[in-house]
């Protein structure tokens, strides 16, 4: 039997420490919607999504009410759009159909305007990648991602070059909104097929017809637990994080199982990620600082993050029957008040963030850079990040926003969960000749596992 003090501790986690389930994401395969007629493709996609996800938001709200735990987002991920848009000329029409489906079903993001080009670019992939600026400009809830490298295939530098240009073009097309289009565009290395978190979610080609996955959260709960072990050695810190992650994940597993049952859709995975939000008390940076760092970004930050990332996985993995997605700690700068403060005081730089991405679950995330950053520099940032992912067998990603007209020290406002970010400097030296080479960076030796 659960004791009164356990009940009250759960309530405290929800009320004061902002424990929530970050997202229920329904992955929907669109492979059955293929058509070479633009209108017919768009109609089939719209109808299929609306039919599959018609109860998603209602069921999410019911579970939220009955279990008393907030479920912040209800979202949809779909088959990478490039896989179904090969027969049509302008995939941006499909983007708008996806956006309409998101609005009809009431979800707040739909992900999967994506292409998987880690080894090569098909003509359909190229059309889709080139349509990303228009797609993100003419939609509200659509998210886009492109996988440009993998440990098995190496890094497709032609795709890296193109994506640098597309990020710049997206920023320009959404210049009146601080370049917000780029906040919904992720460039991956080793993208996972079952990630429930935006903006990088898509329903991979290896998935079934439909699945529900859950992304947990709870940086505030971990921070609060660590407050009770101040001054203790790291063994105690790791144990405390593991115990907390276990509890958080059990809630995620419960919600995932319940959502799967009520929607009559198979349960996909629970993603054990500590995802921050811009509200106070929901910060990953605050956890790192609680470990004894004066500011996130100072020396010791990478080690602190490595411990956190590992302990979250170890604690969470036993709490769920299927763990997947990105699973680790997220460090999106604009979505974390502690990261924002660290960047504003100059403690957190792009180089330090890059080092941090070697040991956590994603990559350079939600970082505002000056508006005059060139496409080649952005491509080079992507290449660096992809190299880290490729060599270390992990997912890495780049979601940077070259905010049009903004200079170092300015602030870019994206609103809501996307938060705001101080514009931080990039290196002023050119990477143009490096990026213009194109071709493929070969896969590392340890890709030859067979």
């Amino acid at each position: 039997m659960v004791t009164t003090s356990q009940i009250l501790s759960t309530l405290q986690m929800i009320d004061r420490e902002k424990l929530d389930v970050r997202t229920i994401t329904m992955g929907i395969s669109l492979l059955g919607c293929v058509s070479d007629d633009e209108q017919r493709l768009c109609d089939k996609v719209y109808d299929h999504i609306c039919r599959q996800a018609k109860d998603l938001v209602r069921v999410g709200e019911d579970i939220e009410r009955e279990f008393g735990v907030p479920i912040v987002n209800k979202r949809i991920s779909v088959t990478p759009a490039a896989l179904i848009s090969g027969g049509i000329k302008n995939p941006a029409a499909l983007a708008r159909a996806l956006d309409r489906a998101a609005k009809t079903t009431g979800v707040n993001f739909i992900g999967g305007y994506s292409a998987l080009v880690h080894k090569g670019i098909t003509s359909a992939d190229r059309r889709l990648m080139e349509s990303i600026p228009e797609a993100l400009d003419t939609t509200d809830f659509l998210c886009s991602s492109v996988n440009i490298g993998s440990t098995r295939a190496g890094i497709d530098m032609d795709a890296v070059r193109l994506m640098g240009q597309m990020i710049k073009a997206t920023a320009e097309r959404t210049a009146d909104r601080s370049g917000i289009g780029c906040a919904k565009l992720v460039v991956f290395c080793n993208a996972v097929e079952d990630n429930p978190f935006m903006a990088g979610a898509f329903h991979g080609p290896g998935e079934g017809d439909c699945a529900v996955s859950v992304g947990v959260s709870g940086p505030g709960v971990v921070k609060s637990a660590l407050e009770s072990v101040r001054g203790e050695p790291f063994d105690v810190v790791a144990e405390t994080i593991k115990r907390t992650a276990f509890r958080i994940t059990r809630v995620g597993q419960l919600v995932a199982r319940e959502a799967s049952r009520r929607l009559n859709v198979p349960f996909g995975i629970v993603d054990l990620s500590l995802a921050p939000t811009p509200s106070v008390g929901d910060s990953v940076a605050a956890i790192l600082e609680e470990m004894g760092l004066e500011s996130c970004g100072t020396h010791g930050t990478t080690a602190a993050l490595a411990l956190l990332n590992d302990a979250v996985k170890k604690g969470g993995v036993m709490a769920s029957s299927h763990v997947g997605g990105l699973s680790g700690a997220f460090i999106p700068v604009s979505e974390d008040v502690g990261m924002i403060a660290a960047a504003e005081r100059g403690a957190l730089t792009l180089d330090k963030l890059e080092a941090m991405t070697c040991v956590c679950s994603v990559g350079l995330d939600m970082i505002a850079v000056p508006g005059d950053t060139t496409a080649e520099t952005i491509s080079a940032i992507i290449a660096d990040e992809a190299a880290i992912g490729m060599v270390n067998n992990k997912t890495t990603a780049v979601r940077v926003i070259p905010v049009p007209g903004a200079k170092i020290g300015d602030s870019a406002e994206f609103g809501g969960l996307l938060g705001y970010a101080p514009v931080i400097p990039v290196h002023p030296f050119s990477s143009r000749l490096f990026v213009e080479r194109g071709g493929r960076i070969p896969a590392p030796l340890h890709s030859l596992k067979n």
Partner: protein
Amino acid sequence: MREIKKAVVTVLGIDCKGIIAHISAVLYDNDVNILDISQTVLEDYFNMVLIADVSSCAFEKLSADLTMLGEKLGLQIRVQRSEIFEAMHQV
């Protein structure tokens, strides 16, 4: 035998007359059986945890009724399915 669906009702706030009377009236009206109550008053703060069988009630209505009562009495009243606490604190 039918499976019992349990819920936990928690009440927090400044103590006043008739809290339990009001809450049990709402529970009775919603066809809810009370299984266990534990209550403490620390200084003026009232703190109650009540376990109830909600197998035969409409959860949504119960939740709305209790929230309304909470607003009337100036208390924070919540009802949650018990599985969330069991998941978190039991292996």
